[in-house]
C-alpha cells in the first residue's frame, strides 16, 4: 500500500509540556483520515509540524515520500492547507485571493485562470468573484479558503476543523466537496464534530495529551464500547426514588439522570435481570439498549472534564 503520510515518533516539546509525544502514523493515499481530540490534545501542533510551519523536537515525517525537514519546499508544493481561521486577504477580492495563491506556486496565468474559474464554479462563488471576503458569510469565506488550498491541485489536503462555526447547510456543502476530492487526493482532517468524522473519515485516530489513543474505522471504534452495555431507562414518576435505588446497585456504572430518564451502563449483560428484579416493571415507561456513538468512544477515552 502506498502512503501519503508516514509519521515516525514525531514530538514537539515546549519546556516541560509535550504537546505531541512520539506520534506515529501512516495514512494511505487517496483516503480521508480523521484526527480527533479535545482542545489541547496536540492536533493543531501536529498539523503545523506536518505542514512545515513548526519544527519538530524529535522524530520524522514524510509527505508523499518527502521529508518535512530536508525537503520542506517540495512538501509545501504538494500540500494544501485549510487552517482553523479564515486567513483570507480582506484587501483582495475573492478572485485575487486565488490568483495570489497561484502566483506563489509559479503557475502560469493561462493555467491558473482556468483552474480558478473551475473552482469558483464548484464552490458557487463565480457571481461573487470580484467582491471582497468581508462581504461574504462565514460559510462562503470557508468555501473560499478551501478553494484557495486547492488552486495548485495538491496531493495532500490538510483541513484543520474545516466546518467550525458553519451552519448545517454549509457544513454539508463542505462535506460533499471534501468527499468529491478523493481518491485523487489524500485528506487529513481534524474536527471536534463526531458526526463529521463518522460521515467522512475512512479511518480515525483519537489523540489526547499528544499521543494516539485509538486507531480504526468509526465502526471499529464504536465496537470497542460494545461491551459497555449502555441502557436508557425512563420511568413514569418517582425519579428521585429510582435514582437512590440505582445508585445502590453495585453493577450499575456511569449513571446519569435527566428528570425521570436515566442513562446507565451495566458491568455485564448478565446484570440486566437483577436490575429489572430490583426496579420492578410498574413504573417503567421505556427501556432500551443504547448503541455507542463515536462521541461515547471519544468521551470514554478523553474524559468528561472541560479543557481550557
Amino acid at each position: 500500500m502506498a502512503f501519503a503520510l508516514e509519521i515516525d515518533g514525531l514530538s514537539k516539546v515546549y519546556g516541560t509540556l509535550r504537546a505531541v509525544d512520539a506520534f506515529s502514523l501512516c495514512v494511505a493515499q487517496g483516503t480521508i483520515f480523521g484526527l480527533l481530540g479535545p482542545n489541547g490534545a496536540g492536533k493543531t501542533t501536529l498539523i503545523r509540524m506536518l505542514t512545515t510551519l513548526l519544527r519538530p523536537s524529535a522524530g520524522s515525517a514524510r509527505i508523499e515520500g518527502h521529508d518535512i525537514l530536508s525537503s520542506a519546499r517540495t512538501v509545501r508544493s504538494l500540500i494544501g492547507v485549510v487552517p482553523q481561521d479564515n486567513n483570507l486577504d480582506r484587501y483582495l477580492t475573492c478572485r485575487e485571493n486565488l490568483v495570489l495563491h497561484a502566483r506563489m506556486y509559479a503557475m502560469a496565468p493561462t493555467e491558473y485562470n482556468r483552474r480558478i474559474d473551475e473552482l469558483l464554479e464548484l464552490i458557487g462563488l463565480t457571481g461573487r468573484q470580484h467582491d471582497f471576503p468581508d462581504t461574504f458569510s462565514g460559510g462562503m469565506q470557508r468555501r473560499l479558503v478551501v478553494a484557495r488550498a486547492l488552486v495548485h491541485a495538491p496531493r495532500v489536503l490538510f483541513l484543520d476543523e474545516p466546518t467550525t462555526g458553519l451552519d448545517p447547510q454549509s457544513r454539508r456543502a463542505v462535506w460533499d466537496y471534501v468527499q468529491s476530492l478523493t481518491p485523487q487526493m489524500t485528506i487529513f482532517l481534524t474536527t471536534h464534530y463526531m458526526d463529521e468524522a463518522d460521515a467522512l473519515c475512512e479511518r480515525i485516530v483519537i489523540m489526547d495529551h499528544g499521543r494516539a489513543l485509538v486507531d480504526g474505522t468509526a465502526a471499529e471504534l464504536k465496537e470497542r464500547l460494545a461491551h459497555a452495555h449502555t441502557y436508557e431507562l425512563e420511568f413514569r414518576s418517582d425519579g428521585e426514588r429510582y435514582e437512590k435505588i440505582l445508585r445502590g446497585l453495585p453493577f450499575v456504572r456511569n449513571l446519569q439522570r435527566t428528570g425521570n430518564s436515566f442513562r446507565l451502563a451495566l458491568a455485564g449483560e448478565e446484570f440486566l435481570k437483577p436490575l429489572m428484579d430490583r426496579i420492578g416493571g410498574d413504573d417503567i415507561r421505556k427501556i432500551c439498549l443504547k448503541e455507542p456513538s463515536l462521541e461515547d468512544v471519544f468521551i470514554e477515552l478523553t474524559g468528561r472534564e472541560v479543557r481550557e
Partner: protein
Amino acid sequence: MFRGAIAIFWRDLLVLRRSLFSELLAVIAYPLTLYLAFGIGLRGYIADVDGVPYALFIAPGLISMTAVSAAFNDSAWSVWFHRRVQRTIEEYRVTPITVYDIVIGKIFSGFAQGTLKGLAVALVIFILTPFRFPPAHLLAYLLFIFLGSMVFSCVGTICGTMIDKPENIGRVEAVVIVPLIFMSGIFFPLSSYPKAAFAAISLLPTTAIFEGARQALLNGKLAPLSIAILLVTAVIAFAAATFTFNRKMSE
C-alpha cells in the same frame, strides 16, 4: 527565484493602486503643512541658511522625510497586520516560497511606497511653491531617496515583526523615528549643534539621508561619506530584517 517576493510585491501594489488617491492626499497634507508653516511663516525671521533661502533649505528634507516615514509605516504596519490580524503570513508560509521571499517582498513594497509618496510630495511642492532645482540634480537626489526608503523599510519590517501590540509601533515611531528625523537637519543646519554633538549627529543614517539629499538636489553634489553610511546601514538593516523575520517565523 524570488517569485514569492514578486507575488507579494504585486499584491501590495494592487492594494495601493485601489487607494492611491486617498493615500497620496493623506501623505501630502503633513509635509505641505510643515512647508507652509515653516517655509512661509518663518520666512520673515530666517532670511537664509548658508546662503540658501529657508523655504528652499527645508524643501528637500520634507520630501525625504515623507519618503522614509512612508517606507517605515508601510512596512511596519503591513508586516504587523499580515502577521497578527489577517494571519496571511501563515498562508504564505505553507506555499513553496521562502521566508526570505516574504521579507524581501514586504521591504520592496515599503520602499516603493516610500519612493512614490516622496515623489508625490516633491511634485506638489514644485507645483504650489517657488521651490526650483536644476533637473540634472534629480538623479543624485533619487539615489538618497532610494537608499533612505530601503533603510526605513527594513527598520519598519523589524518593528512589524518583533512588536505584537500595535500601540508599541506608534511608540517606537514617537521615541526613535521622529527624533532621528527631526534631529538630522531638516529644519536647521547641522552647524547649529555643539561640536561634540556634531560628530555623532553627522554619523546618523538620517543625517546622511537628509543632508546628503539636500546637497544632491540643491548643489548637485554626491557626498561620498553620506552614501557610504547609507549603503552600510542599508546592508545591515536588510540583514537584520531578514534575520529577525526568519527567527520570528521559526518560533
